[in-house]
Structure formats: C-alpha cells, structure tokens
C-alpha cells in the first residue's frame, strides 16, 4: 500500500571495547517503516528500545548496518547535515517534555520552522493549527513552567509535528505522566495518525498503551522477537 520511509538494515550496536564486558544492545535489526504507520516498540528494560530510536534519529551511530530515510543513508552525514536532517525529517517527543524554558508555547512550537526559515505568516498559521489538534488553545504565550506535565507533553507533540516531519520518534512519551493523562496523550497521537496520516513510532512499557498501536515490535536482548500487525 503506502511507501516505505524508513529502512533499517542489519543494524548492530555494541557498547564498550573490552570483549568481556561488551554489551550487544542491538543485534541484526532489520525493520522498515511505512508512511502512516503507528508503531509501538516494546520489550523489557535494557532490550534496546532507546538505542534503536536513537540510531533511527541519527543521535547515535550504529556499529554496523544502514539507516536509510527516503533513500538517503544517514550514517555518512556530517554534523551539520545531521542537524538539518533531524530538523527537516524527524519529530522528537522526549520522556521529560524538554521544552525550552525561555520560549513561550508558541515560540517552542515554531522553533524548528524558524530554523527552516519559514515566513512569519506561515508559522503563525501552523502554530494555531497544531495547537488546535493537540487541544491546547489560548495558551500560546505561556511559558512551559506555567503548564502541567500533560499540557507540556502536548506542546512537545505539537512541536514535533509542527514542521511536518516524515516520522515522529517518541521514547517513552508517557512515562512521566499518570496513566490517565498518558492514555489521553496516546489517543491524541492516534488521532493525529488517523486524521492527518502522521507516522509515529514510540516505545513503551505500558500494556494499555501498546494495545493502541497498530503495529507492535517486540525487542528482547537487542533482537526483534516478534512483530504483530493489528487492524
């Protein structure tokens, strides 16, 4: 049906030089992600979920293997190219919100678009659009510290989708939220996926949350144990 946007081929990631204490965080991972997917990465602690997401975003470098986004190999990019790659293609949602404290809600959301050189008008339109879709209207000029955790994480989602990236990566986006707020956040992400076709991949420990995923990738000891597609 839809095109493949992310292609991960034969990824290995080891930590440490000493053969005795060497950690195989990821071993022989092959994974492809299609546009419009809503995937969850699950597995016990230490199974390699964060490592895989970091490698996909270019924040971490695999020991071997290829990461290809839209036909581009990201392994061989320079620091600046990687910066631009993340800016233009990847949306991030972090576990602990990580909004910029000196910027208002509006400025946090438009930050990436400013880096991209989008016009003020385009940015303003986009900000009110995404604020509506994450359900935080009328708080544009507040600082992050004036919002609750759940609201901050919604702003973080808004920031991640504002510049219309190819994929949104979220490492345990609900870990810092109570289960109700967390469920609501995932529901909201799901709506963004259904209505706007945004591609998400997130890691989680929470059974209720993984139940919402359309595709479930289970990792164990750095290997893909199981893949399950639901409808």
């Amino acid at each position: 049906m839809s095109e493949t946007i992310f292609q991960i081929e034969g990824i290995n990631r080891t930590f440490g030089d000493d053969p005795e204490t060497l950690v195989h965080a990821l071993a022989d991972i092959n994974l492809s992600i299609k546009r419009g997917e809503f995937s969850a990465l699950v597995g016990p602690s230490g199974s390699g979920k964060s490592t895989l997401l970091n490698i996909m975003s270019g924040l971490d470098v695999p020991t071997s293997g290829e990461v290809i986004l839209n036909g581009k190999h990201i392994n061989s990019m320079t620091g600046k190219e990687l910066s631009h790659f993340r800016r233009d293609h990847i949306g991030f949602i972090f576990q602990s919100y990580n909004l910029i404290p000196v910027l208002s809600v509006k400025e946090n959301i438009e930050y990436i678009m400013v880096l991209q050189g989008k016009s003020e008008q385009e940015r303003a339109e986009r900000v009110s659009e995404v604020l509506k879709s994450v359900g935080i209207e009328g708080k544009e000029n507040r600082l992050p510290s004036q919002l609750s955790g759940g609201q901050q994480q919604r702003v973080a989602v808004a920031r991640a989708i504002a510049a219309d990236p190819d994929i949104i990566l979220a490492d345990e986006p609900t870990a810092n939220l109570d289960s109700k707020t967390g469920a609501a956040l995932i529901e909201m992400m799901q709506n963004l996926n259904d209505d706007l076709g945004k591609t998400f991949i997130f890691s989680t420990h929470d059974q209720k949350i993984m139940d919402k995923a359309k595709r479930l990738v289970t990792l164990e000891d750095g290997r893909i144990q199981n893949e399950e597609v639901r409808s």
Partner: protein
Amino acid sequence: MILKMAFRNIFRHKRRTALTALMMIGGYVLLSFSLAFVDGSYGDMISLFTSQTTGHAQIHNDKFINSESIHDSIKSWDKIKEDLKNNSEVVSFSPRLKNGALAFSHKKTFAVEMWGIDWASEPKVTTIKQRLALGSWPSTNGENQVLIGSKISEVLGLKVGDEIVLISQGADGSIANDIFFVKGIFEKEEQGVDDYRVYTDLASAQMFYSTSHIHEVAIKLASIYNAKKFSTHFKVEEGLIIRPWQEVEKDFFKAMEIDKKGNTISYSIIMFVVALGVLNTVLMSILERTKELGVLKAIGTTPGSLSLMIILESQILAMMSLIIGSIIATLLNSYFSKHGISFSEPMTYGGMTISAMYARITLNSYLRPAVIVLVSTLFVSIFPAIRAARISPLDAMREV
C-alpha cells in the same frame, strides 16, 4: 530566534547576571577613568613643557639640527613670516638666532647660550616673560640689552643694571665682542630652562654676530594635538625643515610614551580579573543548561548556532554594561576634568611643577576600554561556545 533566546537567557539568573554586569561596568569605568586621567595629566604636562621654550612646532635649516652652526641658518625669514601670518592654524610665532658665547664679568668667564629673540613675539609663544624674576622686560631693540639666567648671575655675580661682556665668533669669521646691559634676571629653579641663557633682541644679536639671518622659528598652534598634521602640511622651502614638538623633543616624548606603556600592565590586571569572572559565569551557565542545549541540538539546531547563542549572550551583556558604564564614566570624568585631584605636595617632572591632575574626556578614554571589554569577553566566551557546540544530545539528555 537565536538572538531572542540569547537575550532571554541573560535574564534567567538575575543576580548572577547583575554581578557579572557589575564586574564589566566596574572594569570599564576604572579603565575609562584612568585613561581619562592619563590623557588629562599627560596633556597638561605636554602643554606645560612645550610652552617653556619649544612651542608646538619649529622650523630650522635642516643642517642646523645636528651642526648648530651659525652658518646653517634660515635666510628667507620674511617669506616664512608671511606664510605663518596667513595660516589660520597658527596662533603666534617667534624667530630666534641661536649661538654660543663666552660671558665675561668681574674677571670670571662662563660659557653661555646666546639667543636673539623678538621682545614682542617671544612671550606670545612661550611663558618666558612669567619666568623673569628681577628687572623688567625690555622693549627697545639694538641697544644690547640682555636678560640672563640665574646661574649666570650667580657665577658671574651679576645684578640688574650691571654690564656684561660677551665674546664669540661672527658669521663672517671676525671676532665678535661687545658690552651688554643686564635688564633682568630669570627665577632660580632647579634645572631651570633659562639657567645658561642670555637673551637679547634680534637686532642686537644680528649685529653682534654680523649676520642678517635667524636659526629657529617657534610656532604656537590653535591646538597642540594638530602639531603633527600641521608640520606635514605646512610647506617650507628646500633646505628647511618643520618638525612637531614630538620630534623636536624626542627624548621627552619617548619618556612619556614609556610611562604610558607602564600603565598598560595595571589595565591588563584589571581586565584579567574581569575576564575570569565572565568566564566563570559563562561556563556555569552552559553547564547547568547541558540538557537544554542537548535538546536544541537534537531537534535540529546546528552546532554553529549554539555557539553563536553563547557568544551573543555574553556580548549582549557586555554591551549593556558598556552603556551603563559609559554613563557613569562620563559623570566621573567630567567632574574630575573640572575639579581635578590636587596633590598634597606639588610634584616636579622635568623642571615643571604640577600641583593637580585633571581628567580629560577623549574618545580614546571611551573607545579603548569598550574595545578591550568586548574583545576579552569574546575571547573568554569562545571556549564555552565551542563546548556548547560539541555537546552530544544523547549524553546531555541522559543527565536528568
């Protein structure tokens, strides 16, 4: 956006920012204030010094500078006089005939410098008239009237009204000797400029030396700070040379320059302390924001933009400090340019007595400290800026 963030980051820690700004302001004011004083007191010294004898610029026969020979003279005085009169920069000028002579009185001899001057124009260039202690300032020419230095009067036992015989060699090779009349004696001072001089009028001196020429023209300008410019632009004929006081009094000028350089050390120490304080602040500010900088980098900010933000933060703070600092410095400097700081005991410097120091507001006393503060702030923020650029987003975000 980077600028906006830099600006807001400055105000995150108000107390720390205020403290850093205070250091920058203090450093700037201290530098500006001491430079204003240096400029002021050196300016006073220079005008005092040049008003004794030298003037702001001098014209000679270029050979006279080394030979001091009676033959290496200025022959075209009339033309120079016209040029000087027509120049708007020139306030006053004075022609001089200069040569050595032997003074003889009460059976004693003493080697003296004989100066033929113009009674009317010389006091308009120098403070010679104020230095006269005994007798009166002559006004008639060609009557062999002389004013003598205190040393000469002491050694030869001369009083006002006494006669003095001067012996030398004329320009034509003949023996010059004549009787002169002491009309006045200069004040006694330690290493006074007039100690060994005998001043007479130009006509008497030219008669004595059998010449119609002069050797030196001393010029006073509207502003002493234009001496160099004036000397390069004022045209004198072939064989003559015009030099500003900095060249005429090379030794004095060099001594002052060395003195000024000595001050640089104390300025450097002030700036070093300020720079250390700023470095500390900037480093602290990036260490406590490691995670935030990591996030900025993760979501696509380039390393260069992060560096720029850190540098902008300290430069903005420095510029704000400079604005406040220059207001304070202006208040201080303008007060002390009027009131000065007087010494409990007058200080002598090269035969001049200085009893108070005044500040002088010059562009130099604002610009130089400003450049120093900005550049040293830039310098100490480069290292933290590079550090910020190199932050690894993963490491940064792992620290919670």
